[in-house]
């Protein structure tokens, strides 16, 4: 086997790590966390302890696992091949994320193009409206023929959302500048623009939270506001979650930069996170156009 001790010196070999406790730690903690989450939803009283216990264990796992990987990397155990594997892995992981969002965009499309018009008596389903929902005339946004959740207003695209778009796009630029700086070996620019990037990220999340407050308190726009509220909050919510994770990853990368990690040639972790950041960026554009604007 590409034996650890040898590999360190023999760059030709593909590094195969030896036994690791992190996978089993990971699955036990995820099991605990999910069990806790289920218990929470079922209103079991000790549930919070199980859930948060599992959650902390998951954090510990990530911390330790990535710590190990970073250590091996710093030790120069990874050759080109390993680097390539990481790249491919990250690419396909991001692809799977795209498909996940695809499901929700698909739901949005279906609701707007098919189910709502049908309920409104359009197309092949006019009887549905005639017999079940006489009063309902379909228009997007809608909370459905039963006006689930009561009347609500929506968030205009060219208020906060537009600002948020600007913020994310800018962060896309700043991270690219940071990347070029890294390649050019200009660490100061790198540090500044990387920091700028995650600050913009957190700013975005903050404004998003602000927007949710507004929606819930002033506009009566909630998860329960029919299919509009459902698609709106699930899409923007999962996106916000991804931005948060991305920003945290950027912070880790930044701390590593401060530690002096990464060379102009070798900085996969940086690039991986950058790709991820561009991905959340693109998803947002989709959201801005199809959820807020059109």
């Amino acid at each position, binding site marked *: 086997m590409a034996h650890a001790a040898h590999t360190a010196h023999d760059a030709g070999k593909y590094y195969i790590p030896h036994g690791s406790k992190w996978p089993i730690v990971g699955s036990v903690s995820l099991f605990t966390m999910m069990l806790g989450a289920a218990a929470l939803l079922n209103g079991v009283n000790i549930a919070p302890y199980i859930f948060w216990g599992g959650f902390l264990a998951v954090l510990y796992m990530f911390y330790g696992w990535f710590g190990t990987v970073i250590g091996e990397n710093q030790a120069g155990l990874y050759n080109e091949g390993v680097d390539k594997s990481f790249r491919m892995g990250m690419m396909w992981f991001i692809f799977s994320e795209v498909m996940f969002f695809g499901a929700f965009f698909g739901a949005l499309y279906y609701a707007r193009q098919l189910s709502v018009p049908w309920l409104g008596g359009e197309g092949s389903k006019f009887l549905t409206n*005639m017999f*079940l929902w006489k*009063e309902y005339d379909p228009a997007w946004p809608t909370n459905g023929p039963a006006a689930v959740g009561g009347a609500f207003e929506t968030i205009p695209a060219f208020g906060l959302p537009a600002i948020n778009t600007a913020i994310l796009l800018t962060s896309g630029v700043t991270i690219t500048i940071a990347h070029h700086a890294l390649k050019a070996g200009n660490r100061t620019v790198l540090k500044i623009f990387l920091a700028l990037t995650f600050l913009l990220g957190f700013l975005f999340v903050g404004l998003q939270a602000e927007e949710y407050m507004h929606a819930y308190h002033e506009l009566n726009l909630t998860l329960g506001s029919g299919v509009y509220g459902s698609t709106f909050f699930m899409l923007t919510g999962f996106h916000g979650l991804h931005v948060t994770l991305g920003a945290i990853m950027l912070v880790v990368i930044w701390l590593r930069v401060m530690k002096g990690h990464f060379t102009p040639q070798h900085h996969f972790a940086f690039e991986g996170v950058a790709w991820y950041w561009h991905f959340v960026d693109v998803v947002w554009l989709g959201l801005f156009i199809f959820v807020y604007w059109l």
Partner: protein
Amino acid sequence: MPKKMVRRALAATAVIGLSLLGSNPAMAAWTLNLREGVTELSREIYGLHMLILWVCVAIAVAVFSVMIYSIATFRKSKGAVPATFDHSTGAEVTWTIIPVVILVAMAIPAARTLVKIEDASGSELTVKVTGYQWKWQYDYVDHGVAFFSTLSSRHNEARQVDSGVDVRQVDDYLLDVDNPLVVPVGKKVRVLVTAADVIHNWWVPDFGLKKDAIPGYINELWFRAEKVGTYRGQCAELCGRDHGFMPVVVRVVEQAQFDTWIAGQQAARQAAAAPAAQAAATVAPIAIETPALRVAAAE
């Protein structure tokens, strides 16, 4: 074991062939095949079914006999020496084209029937069918007559675990209801299916069609029964605990009989106390939803 192989394959094809004999509807047990049914659509569907079945049998016979021949002939034990060829563009193109042709030939009649099935226009009677956990509601929307149809109590007792009843002695076990749907023979009946709680599926095999009953939506199907009689089907979409116990029973009667029957129903309705409320209550497709109630009242 190749002999056994041969026997098994032959047996399999034989059984498929046999299934054609099953088309006799009288034959209850050991039934093998789809029934022809009593509507134009059900017969067309039956025809398509036999056609595609035969196509498959034919291809199966062809493909399987080549396989069996190879298994029987090219055996090491018979001193067969392996050939070295590993492709033949000609052959590969052929067995790509031929299936395409077969499929296109299949698709044409299928498409034609599909179009016919989806055309419910010109119907002479409309019945709204609403699935509930676990019963059906039949609503003659043009006559203001509506009632529930539930598994008949005798069967319901018989089907309980350790009921002590030998269900073989219960005729049409699980396929009998208290109030069947009644429709006139030879008339194009349009059925509007929906549901009150979860998805159900209204199915009468002899009419050839089944359609999902989806809460909050209306689906359409139509049939024109050509023979007087009683036709039995079942709910065909898992709808919870008693999904197996909400049969569909349709009595097809002469127009005259139907008229007297429906008149009787209407009379009974008048007689009944607080008719309005009652009608609303029974006709309401989804008790909680007001617009529906309004429709009901309107009728």
